């Protein structure tokens, strides 16, 4: 198995490892697969060895002489490097790169179709598995587990233009979850909505997510939005995130100063993240494109109600029966900073603040029982199609077919 540091792929690799171990496969790390070019250097491999790599297409590297499988996620309806004028880096041509390994594994049906229609023959749908608890139990205030309550959250206070320095004048003060509920919700259990995202990614559509929640919160002050930001804690410290990263990802506001939206950048160990999902009534997603969206699936596995558009990878597991669906419209890609780049010939699926607010109102309008029922169905969906055992069976069928 190989993979240079790359956040999403590192996660996919970590998640697929239990499925490979479930099959009792022997796993070895191969940090630089491209260097093994001769029989002497491949002596540690036998004829049944298989090289499984988790990398974006441009970083595909083979171990020559054995079977090579690349696990590649892709969120868009076109590949990069097609019909571009002028000289280009050979590895920027996704089609060329995807044709190099013996086989491509991709986590969702939409990507499978995009790859197939680009002429990539040997593509198979193998999602990253999700650890699914047998019966997810909910957590309510004041029974917040201590490790979850240790996490520092700061409220979203972000200024633009004339308010750009607001964080320096009035810095946000870190709160524990129980303090937030005591200070701002009178000690009553709020309607907790959670999301987890990398703020730098334009496809996460932060403006609609924050704007939609603010609109909703105006009518439903009992709601609380917890955003776990996935950032590099060495270089993207929380104050930098507020003054730098978020300001470039949210537009259309002069000032947001909300005690209902709280941010954390701390590292969450798996059990703490699970507790956060157990504490949340819903998981909110406003993405424009997704290759699998494991955080949404993990929240579903723990019984949180998905509030999300149903497009791209979400088509595989989101339905009216297990989610509150956010309305979206297909739109050409009009922003820089995506893996595809600015590409008016390609499209993604755009939902607005109004769409998010509308979906949240529907969520709030559901009874406790109806919400619990949706959460249980969400859990069952993930348990059925994305559990370690289920993905292991798909992997086994690929290996079996080969032999």
């Amino acid at each position: 198995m190989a993979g240079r540091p790359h956040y999403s792929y590192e996660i996919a690799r970590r998640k697929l490892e239990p499925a490979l171990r479930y099959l009792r496969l022997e796993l070895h790390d191969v940090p630089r697969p491209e260097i093994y070019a001769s029989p002497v250097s491949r002596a540690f491999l036998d004829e049944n060895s298989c090289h499984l790599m988790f990398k974006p297409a441009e970083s595909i590297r083979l171990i020559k002489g054995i079977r090579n499988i690349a696990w590649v996620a892709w969120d868009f309806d076109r590949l990069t490097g097609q019909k571009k004028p002028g000289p280009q880096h050979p590895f920027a041509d996704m089609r060329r790169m995807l044709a190099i390994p013996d086989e491509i594994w991709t986590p969702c049906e939409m990507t499978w179709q995009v790859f197939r229609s680009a002429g990539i023959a040997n593509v198979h749908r193998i999602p990253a598995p999700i650890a699914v608890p047998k019966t997810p139990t909910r957590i309510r205030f004041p029974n917040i587990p201590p490790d979850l309550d240790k996490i520092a959250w700061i409220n979203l206070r972000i200024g633009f233009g004339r308010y750009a320095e607001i964080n320096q004048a009035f810095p946000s003060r870190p709160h524990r979850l129980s303090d937030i509920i005591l200070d701002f919700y009178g000690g009553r259990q709020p309607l907790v909505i959670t999301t987890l995202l990398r703020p730098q990614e334009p496809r996460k559509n932060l403006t609609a997510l924050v704007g939609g929640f603010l609109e909703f919160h105006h009518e439903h002050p009992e709601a609380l939005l917890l955003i776990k930001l996935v950032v590099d804690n060495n270089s993207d410290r929380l104050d930098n995130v507020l003054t730098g990263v978020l300001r470039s990802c949210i537009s259309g506001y002069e000032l947001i100063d909300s005690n209902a939206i709280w941010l954390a950048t701390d590292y969450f160990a798996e059990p703490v993240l699970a507790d956060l999902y157990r504490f949340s009534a819903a998981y909110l997603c406003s993405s424009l494109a997704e290759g699998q969206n494991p955080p949404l699936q993990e929240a579903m596995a723990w019984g949180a109600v998905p509030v999300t558009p149903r497009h791209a990878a979400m088509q595989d597991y989101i339905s009216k029966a297990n989610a509150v669906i956010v309305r979206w419209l297909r739109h050409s890609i009009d922003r820089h900073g995506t893996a595809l780049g600015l590409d008016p010939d390609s499209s993604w699926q755009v939902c607005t603040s109004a769409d998010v607010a509308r979906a949240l109102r529907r969520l709030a309008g559901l009874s406790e029982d109806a919400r619990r029922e949706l959460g249980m169905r969400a859990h069952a969906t993930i348990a059925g199609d994305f559990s370690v055992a289920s993905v292991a069976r798909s992997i086994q069928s690929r290996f079996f077919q080969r032999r």
Partner: protein
Amino acid sequence: MTHTVFVEVGPLQELRYSGIPNVTLNLCRYWLQQPDEASRFFLGPYVIDRRAIKTVVAARSGGLFQTMLASKQAIGGFAANEARRCPTPVGLFPNVKSVQGLFDLSFQIVHDLSFLLSPEFHHPDTIAHHALTILRDLGTNARTFCVSQATAQDLTTYLDVPADRITVCHPGADPPPDIDQHWRNLPDGEPTRPYILVPGTIEPRKNLDLVLIGLQRIPQLLARYDWVFIGSPGWLIAFDDRISKYGLGEHYRRGAIKWLGYVDEYQKAFLYRHAELAIYPSFFEGFGIPVVEAMYFGCPVVCSYSSGIPEAGGDAVFYFDPTSLPSFERTLLSALRRLRLERASLRAASRRQASRFTWHNFGLRIDQAIAETVAENSRTGRW
């Protein structure tokens, strides 16, 4: 003559001749030994005077070449005009193609695809320079020469170059022809303390960190041997910084670790001749000329089994995995043990392996492959 080979000599402008400039120098030396009408030398749009190339090759001086170019002493007219006067002019490019469309057929040497496969080891400008031209260059080659089977495989695997359009030509490692004369002027004598030689430009791909970490972890290696690093300052890392990083400053100050910077062929030969062994821990090489250079002087080699290096080392070296510190330490300690018991036979095996690679054979194989391609194209009327 059925054709005239125009050898591109751009790399000779480098001040120091190692790597690709050294390959170019030896190609020039080969063609200077052939009849004058078989070849021309060119740089960009200019023909380079044959006598100038002879002088530069004899002096091994890029500085001299630059001076001769600046004073126009080296320039002998326009390559396009000369090409029109010659029968079937073909271009031979030792590296990136500097001109397009000048020759009936063109040939290119590809050393490695490290700039594509391990871009983290290269400066972004280098990546852009090579990566944006490689497909265009390969697409216009009548035949591509690769310095190893490993590089050839990379071309077929990653860039779809048909295997039958590639000829593998292993470079040579024999020292300059006047090395014996040079040695005669040197005093005899053994080094006062045994030393281990580590060749390689100071850049991350050469993986010198592995050796330095090994020295940090196994103090007896420093107690028993001096460690001599040779190679020009390169990019992205600095030798002194690495020494500090691994806490080896004291050993560096008192001379147990030395970095000599660039050494010329004569100094290098002297160092290899007296070294206990050489270590070449590189992550990725087209071929690994330093491995064969060391072996030419009977110096046993401990090297990584990466990319093209096993083609250079064959069965005569000690291999380790460059991504694994335990593998390196095991292999080095085992090699040092065997050296105590089988010094003569190991040195003889090194010399035998190195003798398979000569610069003359490198030039000859390219010469023959060009002739065959010209003949084949002539038969099929491809141009």
